[in-house]
């Protein structure tokens, strides 16, 4: 749980460009967590390196390590976008990158400054052929929305979303594909083509307002400020594009919130175009932007969409329910309407979707997959590790700390195999998510001894007490080998059981009631 003080701290950093004073009672670790949650790790570490506040000494090194991981991840993701674009181009399909990948290469100092959960491409034509092109190249479909389909890279590094439309309800905000292509720019990084700055700003606004109900992570709000500050925006052209796309209201709404949240410098002509209801909605909320517009706030999506589409509500209903095709690919109107009825029933029964949050890696699709576990935060560092574990037979990791000696020494390199590939067993040294972060500790209670659904227990070999109980999903991987000692097996079932008994005995010495609660996982 990130303290609200910590969110306020990182928000002030973004809005004012300098580190504020550390509020009383706020631990540096809280600032770190807030920066992770809001996608601002790289920006925070840059500010700390610049200003060197004494309170930050304990988090500089982990922040820098995370920034390096973010850089690797971002470069890999942008590379994935570039490869996917090349695949489409080879089939004669014109496509442009959207959002994060473009921003990371254009308006941020370095790619690590702009974390993203996936990369997005907009097919300007022949969307079904684009899907076929990706499938034939080995991409596997992982999710499908009305405006985009998500695919996993065959190399396993990430997710690419192929869009037929920037936001849900395709056609509601019509963007002219020919114009988008004509206005494209040449990229200087891995992406060879980029949308124009005006198109990019309009797309961001639509995404923020219509797709996410004006609730984004702070780094996504920072996108608006960076674009306005670092690109030359032709305001007249932007207004004309927004008018043609019937998107004046989303543009004005998103910019108004960006101004309130991160002090984006909004040119006066772009403030116009808000319907009265939308103005009423925004006015009180702009006074508390962090509470109302920064993830994990709950977006008032339905009301917002209705206000944004004042005067076009029938169109909103039609475009939301009647998709461009059925899931079976049937484009006939009768089939689409029939499917729309069943979809309307499903939507009416569906619980509220989780709030969008870039830092948790939730996709942008209209119907996002359920999070792995409610209330669980998945920081970027862990997400990167998960990607690697899912994609490779083993992942190499350097051990830090001495709590597992002599089984694992500080500085040794181990090969981890994911829990999905090899189910952890009692005695394994496992990589588990604890409250303090990821830990390499021994599994002392779990399969095959624990009954299905029971909580598992881990303990450091040199630790006195058991770690808190954890769910099976919190164990990400187990150690397969120690690099310099390939013949030694890191699994020791007997040592695990002795350790379990010692941990329980230690707890009994400290207090019987607690120990009894812990014995029963």
């Amino acid at each position, binding site marked *: 749980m990130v303290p609200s003080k910590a969110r306020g701290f990182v928000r002030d950093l973004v809005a004012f460009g300098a580190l504020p004073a550390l509020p009383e009672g706020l631990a540096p670790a809280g600032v770190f967590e807030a920066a992770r949650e809001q996608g601002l790790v790289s920006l925070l570490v840059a500010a700390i390196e610049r200003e060197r506040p004494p309170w930050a000494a304990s988090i500089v090194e982990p922040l820098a390590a995370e920034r390096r991981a973010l850089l690797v991840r971002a470069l890999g993701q942008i590379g994935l976008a570039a490869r996917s674009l090349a695949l489409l181009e080879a089939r004669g399909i014109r496509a442009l990158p959207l959002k994060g990948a473009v921003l990371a290469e254009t308006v941020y100092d370095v790619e690590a400054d702009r974390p993203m959960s996936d990369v997005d491409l907009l097919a300007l034509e022949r969307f079904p052929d684009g899907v076929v092109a990706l499938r034939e190249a080995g991409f596997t479909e992982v999710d499908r929305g009305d405006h985009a389909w998500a695919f996993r890279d065959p190399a396993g590094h990430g997710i690419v979303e192929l869009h037929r439309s920037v936001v849900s309800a395709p056609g509601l905000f019509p963007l002219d594909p020919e114009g988008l292509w004509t206005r494209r720019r040449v990229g200087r990084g891995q992406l060879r083509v980029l949308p124009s700055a005006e198109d990019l700003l309009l797309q961001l606004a639509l995404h923020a307002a219509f797709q996410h109900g004006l609730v984004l992570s702070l780094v996504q709000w920072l996108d608006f400020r960076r674009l306005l500050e670092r690109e030359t925006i032709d305001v007249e052209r932007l207004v004309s594009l927004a008018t043609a796309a019937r998107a004046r209201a989303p543009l004005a709404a998103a910019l108004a919130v960006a101004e309130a949240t991160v002090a984006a410098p909004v040119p006066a002509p772009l403030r116009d175009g808000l319907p009265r209801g939308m103005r009423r909605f925004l006015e009180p909320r702009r006074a508390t932007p962090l509470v109302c517009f920064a993830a994990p706030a709950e977006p008032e999506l339905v009301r917002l969409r209705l206000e944004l589409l004042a005067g076009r509500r029938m169109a909103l209903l039609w475009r939301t329910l009647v998709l461009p095709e059925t899931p079976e690919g049937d484009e006939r109107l009768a089939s689409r309407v029939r499917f729309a009825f069943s979809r309307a029933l499903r939507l009416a029964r569906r619980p509220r979707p989780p709030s969008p949050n870039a830092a948790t890696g939730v996709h942008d699709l209209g119907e996002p997959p359920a999070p792995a576990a409610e209330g669980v935060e998945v920081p970027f560092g862990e997400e990167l590790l998960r990607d*690697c574990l899912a994609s490779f037979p083993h992942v190499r990791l350097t051990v830090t700390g001495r709590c597992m000696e002599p089984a694992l020494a500080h500085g040794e*390199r181990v090969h981890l195999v994911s829990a999905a590939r090899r189910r952890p067993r009692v005695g394994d040294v496992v990589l588990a998510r604890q409250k303090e972060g990821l830990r390499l500790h021994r599994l002392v209670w779990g399969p095959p001894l624990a009954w299905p659904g029971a909580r598992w227990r881990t303990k450091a070999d040199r630790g006195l007490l058991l770690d808190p109980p954890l769910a099976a999903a919190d164990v990400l991987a187990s150690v397969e080998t120690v690099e310099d000692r390939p013949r030694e097996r890191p699994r020791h079932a007997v040592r695990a059981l002795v350790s379990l008994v010692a941990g329980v005995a230690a707890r009994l010495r400290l207090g019987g009631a607690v120990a009894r609660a812990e014995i029963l996982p």
Partner: protein
Amino acid sequence: VSPRTRRRWLGQAFARSERVVARKIGEEFVLVPLAGRGADIDSILNLRGAAPFIWEQLDGTRTGEAIVDAIVERYEVERPQAAADYVELLETLHHLGAAVPAPRR
């Protein structure tokens, strides 16, 4: 590296590989392989001291000797030390595939 390899490298030009991206992030200068040992987070190289300067000099036209001259001039170190630093870094970069011998002109 052997004395022979060392002599060869000093007389030869090396170029930065296109498969590696260099980025200055804050006070760090890191090299990231874009392909290859994808899951090996340890393959990221953090350059310090004169290493970023040497990396910038690997343009495929300047020989090792010329780069050593540039190091001596910039950092005011003895030539043998500069040559040792250059060869040591080149060994790492070469092993990682980050620097490749430039075709002879």
